[in-house]
């Protein structure tokens, strides 16, 4: 974590202050908007409504409708507005109401934002952020529950960030806003109400993986909500005498291979866990990086994946739960892997 000297006076930090993940995002937006007049928000129902998940909340009352700007339902234009503003001196933060609707904005993000700097010979920068609430678990069914991060991790020119904790939600978002490149920040709908300690001052987190828990027997590599489930699984496994390390990837592109490979080398057993569908999911990339690395010689078992089933997300609660890894699934898979 890098603490930054803020332009304005801040209150004395109470280190134990807790916020929800949603509040932490709002605080990042508020503090960055106060600090930098170029930062503005754009999206559907982010103003008076406060955002579909209440993330932008009251920001419109502090910053007004120009800087917390509601648009008609027009995702391609939302992304395009961000691109156009970013290349001409602004720092837009766009909200795509549910990450699924990024399918309508992909042209501007993938063909335009991601490629401009390179195509134009490095003559331009696209400092924009797209915030995308994703994931399942809320009964929102097939078109409102997807985990599409791997699509964007496939695109050179984009950065792809997935915070798992409230303090990362703030620090990674501030880093994304200050990044001179287009950054896709996938938030998880189930995390919005989770609480954690969040520093009051402005700070950035590096777009790098971190070890959330150290252990000797096995590494769980996860991101987003699966980090929380992996940590819970690690607790349960500890009671059985299995000592689990948990690596939170945090950023898929650029990927911090060193942290992942280092952990794999130490424990010799790796289970990669994500919610996104297994085939073509980012876990395949992580596994490949590990087996291609010097960690290969230290592996005691095949590197394994636990991921979403090969299906759209169903509506029924029991089906929905069964479609993506739960804590008990992680525990079972980890236990089996340790015995291999």
């Amino acid at each position, binding site marked *: 974590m890098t603490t930054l000297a803020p332009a304005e006076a801040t209150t004395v930090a109470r280190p134990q202050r807790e916020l929800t993940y949603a509040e932490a995002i709002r605080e990042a937006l508020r503090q960055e908007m106060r600090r930098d007049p170029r930062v503005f928000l754009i999206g559907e129902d982010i103003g008076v409504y406060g955002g579909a998940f209440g993330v932008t909340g009251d920001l419109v009352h502090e910053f007004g409708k120009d800087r917390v700007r509601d648009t008609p*339902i027009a995702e391609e234009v939302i992304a395009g507005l961000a691109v156009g503003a970013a290349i001409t001196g602004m720092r837009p933060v766009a909200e795509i109401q549910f990450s699924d*609707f990024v399918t309508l904005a992909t042209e501007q993000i993938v063909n335009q934002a991601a490629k401009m700097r390179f195509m134009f010979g490095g003559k331009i920068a696209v400092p924009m952020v797209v915030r995308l609430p994703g994931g399942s678990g809320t009964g929102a*069914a*097939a078109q409102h529950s997807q985990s599409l991060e791997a699509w964007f991790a496939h695109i050179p020119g984009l950065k792809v960030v997935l915070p798992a904790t409230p303090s990362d939600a703030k620090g990674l978002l501030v880093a994304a806003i200050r990044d001179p490149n287009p950054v896709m920040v996938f938030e998880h709908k189930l995390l919005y109400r989770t609480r954690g300690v969040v520093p009051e001052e402005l700070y950035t987190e590096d777009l790098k993986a971190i070890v959330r828990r150290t252990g000797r027997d096995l590494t769980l590599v996860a991101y987003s909500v699966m980090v929380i489930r992996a940590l819970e699984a690690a607790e349960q496994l500890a009671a059985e005498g299995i000592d689990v390390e948990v690596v939170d990837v945090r950023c898929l592109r650029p990927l911090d291979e060193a942290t992942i490979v280092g952990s794999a080398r130490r424990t010799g057993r790796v289970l990669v866990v994500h919610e996104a569908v297994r085939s073509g999911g980012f876990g395949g990339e992580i596994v490949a990086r590990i087996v291609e690395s010097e960690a290969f010689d230290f592996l005691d078992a095949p590197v394994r994946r636990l991921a979403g089933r090969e299906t759209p997300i169903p509506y029924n*609660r029991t089906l929905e739960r069964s479609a993506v890894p739960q804590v008990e699934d992680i525990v079972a898979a980890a236990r089996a892997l340790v015995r291999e």
Partner: protein
Amino acid sequence: MEPSLTPERLRSALQQMMRIRAFEEMAEQLYMRGLVHGTMHLSIGQEASAVGAVLALEPQDYILSTHRGHGHCIAKGADLGRMMAEFMGRETGYCRGRGGSMHIADVDGGNLGANGIVAGGLPIAVGVGLSMQLQSLPRVCLTFFGDGAANEGAFHEALNVAAIWRLPVVFFCENNNYAMSMAVRDAFPTELISQRAAAYNLPGVTVDGNDLHAVYAAAAEAVARARSGHGPTLIEARTYRWRGHSKSDRNLYRTQQEIAEWKERDPITRLRARLIADGVLGAAEADAMLAAVHEEIAAAVAFAEASPEPDPAALEDEVYA
């Protein structure tokens, strides 16, 4: 009165509107009681637009629906028990519990599905229209969408293609004044959404969406035009949703007074009064009709509650044909 609106059809239209209202009220109750997972979008206040539009269709015609689709589905003749079962995520539901409130499809009944993607149905409607044209089938596809959907690129692409190929499509916009919190007055540079039809050289009409007769008349003309090979029409039905957009809505963008004013224009009260005045129906008969509808809804809930949950082991079965 339209000649084809026989007393019998009018009575049945009123009953369909009552069914929609009662279904939505029950859906809301079930949600409040924690019996339903997820969210829902209620169409209370918009019953005349759903029923009036579908009244102009033949049974073999198609509709495409939206996230606010319970009313369209009922209007097209869906079984209330299977709808309720879907809403409650049961195996006996229209989508075997996989789709839920936002994705109810009654394919055999010509409802090609509700859609969770705003404007997602418009391009599909154009495809259905093309398919009818290619197969020389005299069927029409009516696609419902909201005012908000008219600002997606898909709306413009769909209208243009349907117009140049004269496809048998009716674009039926339910303008309920809001797309979530975005007011129509802030989202459109024009007074009427139907003005957009001019850009694609097709007829555009705006009607009182809370007046069943007006909706029917506009839809009947559009359907006849589509069926006879003269291409699409854009209909804008002006209406209002009484409830919040979904369960997360705190109604911060509109006033209680505005909501109350629109409740004065209740499409069901209006049609009931008109049918009684026209001698189509007696007051006692109307009351009995409503009582019968409530019994149907209760039976639908009982059917859903007695139905089994889907089996997680079969989850991947329906991914491919």
